[in-house]
């Protein structure tokens, strides 16, 4: 038995290559009942897939029963070894509880000797599609979990940095060409540089917000340039705690989407009020990203702290959106 490395390839900072080990949605994983609220599930309508699901469910139930029998035995052995009656009683209690509970997700898997490849470990959300037949290694590029081939483009990065010293905003506004300062309107200097094209809000406490960059590296470079400008103006500016606070990406799935249908099936994540806003607001829980989905197929993803979250969120939503294509 071997679960693969739980980090999807693109979490390591690389773009997900096509056809590679794609962590799609656990479409065939009956461990995640529809609508648990973690990873969104696409709605499958084809008969062949549901039959496969049934088969898998039966197999997994059998495995669960086997596992629980093992665990009961294991726990009885543990009991004999322990000398404290209290601990033994506790284990006995938990063993009897687990015997009555039907879900393997709550039973601790003490020995993995007979755990089959199809059973995901408890506590890890199954990011990979379970294989269609048991005892086969997880195959990449099963038809339903293909990579979409579309990569969201980053449009905006918001980052903050601490310059580490108090600043006199009036001096900065006086001696810098690219600064504007209107204390009655906003209590910060708004500074802009041309390369990378960004805007910074510089506060008198020495904290700075940098917006408008199109990549993490550009944001960092821009923040350093602002810090250098402030340094040259005579302040002992440092570059402390640079942190990316928000990343916004967008992409186009190139087909129209029935938003009313999407809100019906995924209503616990979606909010669609055409009287207020033409797009559907989808709040994905894992990863914690907010997606704005429009009828033209354009998708805006925001709320990410790392690039991988945007890619992961899009890979999660793409099969769901594809599912709504056929209903036109």
């Amino acid at each position, binding site marked *: 038995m071997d679960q693969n490395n739980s980090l999807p390839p693109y979490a390591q900072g690389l773009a997900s290559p096509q056809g590679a080990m794609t962590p799609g949605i656990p479409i065939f994983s009956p461990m995640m009942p529809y609508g648990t609220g973690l990873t969104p599930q696409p709605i499958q309508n084809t008969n062949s897939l549901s039959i496969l699901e049934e088969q898998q469910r039966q197999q997994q139930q059998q495995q669960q029963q086997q596992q629980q029998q093992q665990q009961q035995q294991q726990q009885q052995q543990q009991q004999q070894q322990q000398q404290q009656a209290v601990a033994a009683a506790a284990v006995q209690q938990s063993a009897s509880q687990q015997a009555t509970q039907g879900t393997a997700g709550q039973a601790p898997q003490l020995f993995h000797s007979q755990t089959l490849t199809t059973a995901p470990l408890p506590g890890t959300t199954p990011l990979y599609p379970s294989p269609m037949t048991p005892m086969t290694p997880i195959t990449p590029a099963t038809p339903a979990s293909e990579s979409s081939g579309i990569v969201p483009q980053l449009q905006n990065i918001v980052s903050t940095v601490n310059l580490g010293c108090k600043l006199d905003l009036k001096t900065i506004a*006086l001696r810098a*060409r690219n600064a504007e300062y209107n204390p009655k309107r906003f209590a910060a200097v708004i500074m802009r540089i041309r390369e990378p094209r960004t805007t910074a809000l510089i506060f008198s406490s020495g904290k700075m917000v940098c917006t408008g960059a199109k990549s993490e590296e550009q944001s960092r470079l821009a923040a350093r340039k602002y810090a250098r*400008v402030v340094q040259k103006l005579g302040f002992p500016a440092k570059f402390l705690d640079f942190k990316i606070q928000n990343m916004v990406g967008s992409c186009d799935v*190139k087909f129209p989407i029935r938003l009313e249908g999407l809100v019906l099936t995924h209503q616990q994540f979606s909010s669609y009020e*055409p009287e207020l806003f033409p797009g559907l607001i989808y709040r994905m829980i894992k990863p914690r990203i907010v997606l704005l989905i429009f009828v033209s197929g354009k998708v805006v993803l925001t709320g990410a702290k790392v690039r991988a979250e945007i890619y992961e969120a899009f890979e999660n939503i793409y099969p769901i959106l594809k599912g709504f294509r056929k209903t036109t």
Partner: protein
Amino acid sequence: MPGRGRCPDCGSTELVEDSHYSQSQLVCSDCGCVVTEGVLTTTFSDEGNLREVTYSRSTGENEQVSRSQQRGLRRVRDLCRVLQLPPTFEDTAVAYYQQAYRHSGIRAARLQKKEVLVGCCVLITCRQHNWPLTMGAICTLLYADLDVFSSTYMQIVKLLGLDVPSLCLAELVKTYCSSFKLFQASPSVPAKYVEDKEKMLSRTLQLVELANETWLVTGRHPLPVITAATFLAWQSLQPADRLSCSLARFCKLANVDLPYPASSRLQELLAVLLRMAEQLAWLRVLRLDKRSVVKHIGDLLQHRQSLVRSAFRDGTAEVETREKEPPGWGQGQGEGEVGNNSLGLPQGKRPASPALLLPPCMLKSPKRICPAPPVSTVTGDENISDSEIEQYLRTPQEVRDFQRAQAARQAATSVPNPP
């Protein structure tokens, strides 16, 4: 009282503990002599338990309904009565208001927000019972801004974790159409404009369904579509007399506000109907335009399922293949003739090749072509040249000029106006 000592004056043992206002005293009940008295003042630490607690930290909030909450609940009931909602709605809306009030964020909100919250609770109740109440209607009744209403609404849905169904389009059509004052002759409505309610309702419903199917409703405010559909339905029931009436005049006659997007929805709906008319042989020869197609709306609606299927091909698959085709092909509707030729079919005999069934925003050509962003090779740790930074700093001369200009401006604004 025995065991408490004796009165020094008369020697009796009848000592009573009594307090003179806030001062505790031990008094002889026989002669009235004060034997001992307590301390008039208390120390700071003693007063720990006696100090006043602010209302928000006491339990008074939970025990009684605050005045603003009472006012809010009264407003909820009044709003339900004004809207003539069934009595069960009132209780549900009141329950939601009370539930919302338990959250501190709502308790401490401004009065404007609490007022809008009244509308939100009523709206949620109506939505859950499929009662077609629009946000615009509530905002008008409450004299509230739609922005304030929308932010409060989104907040309260999230806070209470409610599942609010979408606005029911069919119900909205029925309610909205019934509000048109065209079903009885009156001084402002001539006889030829009066229409039977049932006929108009059914035709409007069919038109709205057609609009929904052809992507004219998704993502848009529902009301303008219904206005356009009502207008078309009304016109088509007696086209001879009514074709001369414009949409604006129609709404004025019917005593209904004309929503701004209704005219563009009307054009879109007419375009769809024209496309459908192309599929019927006897209509194709008539070479209909946007005005004459109105006369045939009845026929078109009767066969709308098959007409839509033949007039439009699935836009979802088509958009992808369109990308791979040579750039010589035009957009959307222009493909009609070219498509026929490539398929080797004679042009005159077949109806126009199906147009793409896509939302109007996808059919329009993009305003500007967004170039693919250049792949940047920035690492974030490059050296920053001094010259680059110098360009953002003012020279001393510039600083002096700027200061002089500022001073001059200050002087100009501070000089009082001569009498």
